[in-house]
């Protein structure tokens, strides 16, 4: 079958919940360029065969940067919130390798200015794991935190980088913060076709770009899927 996207849905449990606070359910399995991946409901990508968790666009320190630049003073809790979700993903998957696909910090100064407790928390998460910071456009330089710093990274059939490149094959990237609107709800989403996979933004204070936007529609093939984050990860044809 052209497009080679036989989706392998993991068994969906049915999280009963009170509204406003739903338990995270299960992920959505994707065969991508020879790798069996799971798009997690949180927006993280899990590659079980490599024990690898990939997240993109954490934008840690966003509220600090806004305040520093004289803009609005947003509640300074988003970094904590983002890390808490990341911890939950690490615990659920038991990942040994973590790759942050760029724009992990809102800018270099935000990375330097992380409060003590955040740094400690990050270090605790890094302990016993291989941790890779891929460079993004917001945080180009290496930072003083642990872990390796790479422009991009090849792993088996896949290449991991921040921004999608023309003609790439087996590429996993972030940067665009894709989202879709469906049945009256707006959801961050993964986009995937037979050559490319784009991750949603993982950071708490991050906006999104509709998949219809030409910037995204032009990147993805005609049979691309959108995999929605939310209580359960679900696939739909990418709206365009």
């Amino acid at each position: 079958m052209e497009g080679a996207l036989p989706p392998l849905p993991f068994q969906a449990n049915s999280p009963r919940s009170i509204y406003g606070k739903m338990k995270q359910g299960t992920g959505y399995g994707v065969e991508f360029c020879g790798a069996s991946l799971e798009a997690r409901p949180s927006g993280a990508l899990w590659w079980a065969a490599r024990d690898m968790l990939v997240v993109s666009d954490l934008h840690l320190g966003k509220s600090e940067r806004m305040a520093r630049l004289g803009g609005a003073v947003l509640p300074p809790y988003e970094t904590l919130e983002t890390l808490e979700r990341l911890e939950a993903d690490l615990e659920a998957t038991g990942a040994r390798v973590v790759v942050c696909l760029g724009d992990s910090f809102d800018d270099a100064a935000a990375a330097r200015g992380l409060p003590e407790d955040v740094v400690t928390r990050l270090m605790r998460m890094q302990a016993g794991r291989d941790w890779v910071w891929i460079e993004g456009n917001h945080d180009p330089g290496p930072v003083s935190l642990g872990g390796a710093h790479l422009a991009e990274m090849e792993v088996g059939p896949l290449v991991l980088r921040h921004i999608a490149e023309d003609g790439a094959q087996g590429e996993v990237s972030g940067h665009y913060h894709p989202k879709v609107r469906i049945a009256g709800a707006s959801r961050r989403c993964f986009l995937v076709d037979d050559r490319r996979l784009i991750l949603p933004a993982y950071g708490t204070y991050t906006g999104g770009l509709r998949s219809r936007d030409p910037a995204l529609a032009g990147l993805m093939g005609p049979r691309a899927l959108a995999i929605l984050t939310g209580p359960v990860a679900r696939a739909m044809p990418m709206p365009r």
Partner: protein
Amino acid sequence: MFPPVLPSTFTDWFASRGWQVHPHQAEMLGRATEPSLLLIAPTGGGKTLAGFLPTLVELSEGGHEGLHTLYVSPLKALASDIRRNLSTPIDEMGLPIRVEDRTGDTPSSRKRRQRADPPHILLTTPESLALMTSYEDAARTFKGLKRIVVDEIHALADSKRGDQLWLAMARLQRLCPDLRRVGLSATVEDPAAIAHLLAKHPDPCPILQADPGPDPDIRMLETEEQPPWSGGGGSYAIPAILDQVKRHRTTLIFHNTRAQAEIFFHNLWLANEDGLPIGIHHGSLDRTQRERVEQAMVQGRLRAVVCTGSLDLGIDWGDVDLVIQVGAPKNVKRLVQRIGRANHRYNAPSKALLVPANRFEVVECVAALEAVQDHDLDGDPRGPGPRDVLCQHILATACAGPFDEAEVFAEVKTVGAYASLSRAQFDECLEYCATGGYALRAYDRWQRLMQDDQGRWHLRDPRAAQLIRMNLGTIVDTDKVKVRMRFGGGRPLGEIEESFAAQLERGDTFLIGGRIVKYEGLKETAVEVTRSAATKPKIATFAGTKFATSTQLSQRILRMFQQESWPELPRHTAEWLGLQREISALPQPGRLLVESFPFDGREQLCLYGFAGRNAMQTLGLILTKRMEEMGLDPLGFVASDYALLIWGLEAVTDPVPLLSPAALHDGLERWLAGNAVMKRTFRNAAHVAQLLQRNAPQARKTGRQATFSSDILYDTLLKYDPDHLLMEITREEAMRGLVDFGRIEEMLGRVEGRIDVMRLDRVTPLAAPLFLEVGKVPVDGMGRERLVAEEAERLMAEAGLT
């Protein structure tokens, strides 16, 4: 010093026009030295002239340097209208007076010039005034200011725009201690409440009551066509309305929402076989379009204007001799003020026609007519001034220069609306402005304001002033996007809501400015459209202004329902009520009627609580939460003043346990936390207090949107800092207005468990209008999740991907 008799220049001029000075105009002149004075006069009573006469007389002697009188009105259009009206007497009497207006539409070069070299009389809006007081040179601009005239003060009295104005007035009073305040109000139920807002607290404010004039000639429009069972547009009445337009010189046709005005105008135009010149005017239209209509009105070239609240206030649009209100008026006071639009002649009755849009509204219109006859105006007292507006005021104060906190606090305490503000409450606002007010903040870079050695507060970054000024204002509408034509130079047509724009697919059609256009795509931040030949548009869901039906009116309706028959109602409506009684039941005082039926592919639950829109909305939040917990998969709800309609995937056959008072009380705090109404309230407060700033010097759009939803901020604060000032403000606002839990309790007390449950197989006559209510609140729970799953599966199957 100011003789109650006019100088001869004035009496001569009045005489040359064959005019007489009304008693209240003379009295305003006689009492011109009062530090504050409130005039209550009916529309058409020469209110505005009464406000300006003392200014004109004082300035006629010449020799005044700089600004003398500030005139503030709630509408931009009013400011330019008054400028036109003032220029006639000034020119004809040859008075040495310069008059200018200043609104958001004034070019920035002229605004700058006005600050350096202000005219004698400046006509402006609360927003523009707040902006002017935020400049470093405010003291120079306002030097010599003697009077401030607040026109249509009743329209500002119950809004945050008013609160912003009272605060700016306190600032002005400090700059100009001799400033005298004048308020001009239409007929209201509680003049003392408005006087309290106008005066410098705790000074008294005398109230001057003009002769209210004769009762208006107001009735319901009789049509051959019957009003529909449901629907909001009133298009059934178009032939009858056209007939009325033909028989009058100029007719104003009011609608309650912009969307309805658009649809009505479209249909009216299709039926306008004689090609009568008819225009449309509402707040979402592009300014040049609006101005064209305004100008044509003034020149008497239009026979009718279809409009919304944007034409509500005392603009003198020439020879209006008939006002038609389409849709129920919702509020008797507002109706009376609207009617005053017709016949701007003193002591002539205004003529108005009510056109109920559907049969429920027939009942409401009849109830409203009775209330007008009984002079039974409605209104609820407003609580103390909201603190989000105070936060904005503190930031604006900082823009004007360093300030002393004790001085600013003392100044704020002279504002009637903030008279009960405690120092601790003020300090919280200052703390919020200075540091964001977060439990965790620790760094210099979180300081928006900083204290110098003398303890005076400054902006940490002076460049922030520009951003703060750009975001002054208290009108937080839903986000709007501009609509422009794709070809022909991208002519702007107006604005639509962002959420509506988001739903549009290429090729969709919608109405704007009375024409049908086709959606082509988003370019930068504007919606691009082309002309469309379609005759049936997808409807534009502009929110417009939604009025809440007053308690008095609701009670009148409930009483009317109890009659055996309804001779005062048109036969069709009486029959309809009879049908409801036959199929289901009519709501009764002391009982609660609940209907359950399938409709529109969903299970519907309809409760006739008659507790007012806000309380019914709160009930909706509590009930959907309970339903979610019980696995009934609610999808959303909508509240009207009379009823609450909940739709979902499962039928509710036994609502009694849902409605037990114990169950409703249980977890009040819990549901309050995570619901959509609270988030909406928070969003508003966050924008007013400038936690979120919507306007930036230049749109910084990259490939990725920089904005994110205020809901995320709300969730974050709720989790990490639930006692934050903005959360407190949100709770205060919600309790006073949007939540109104007290009225739910009152309703439950009235009902005492007497609940009548009707399970039916289809929509009932009385429930039908609810399906057209705007302001539907989605419930994001398992029901929504089921829909997302189904829709995703359907799309996958359609694409052959399963």
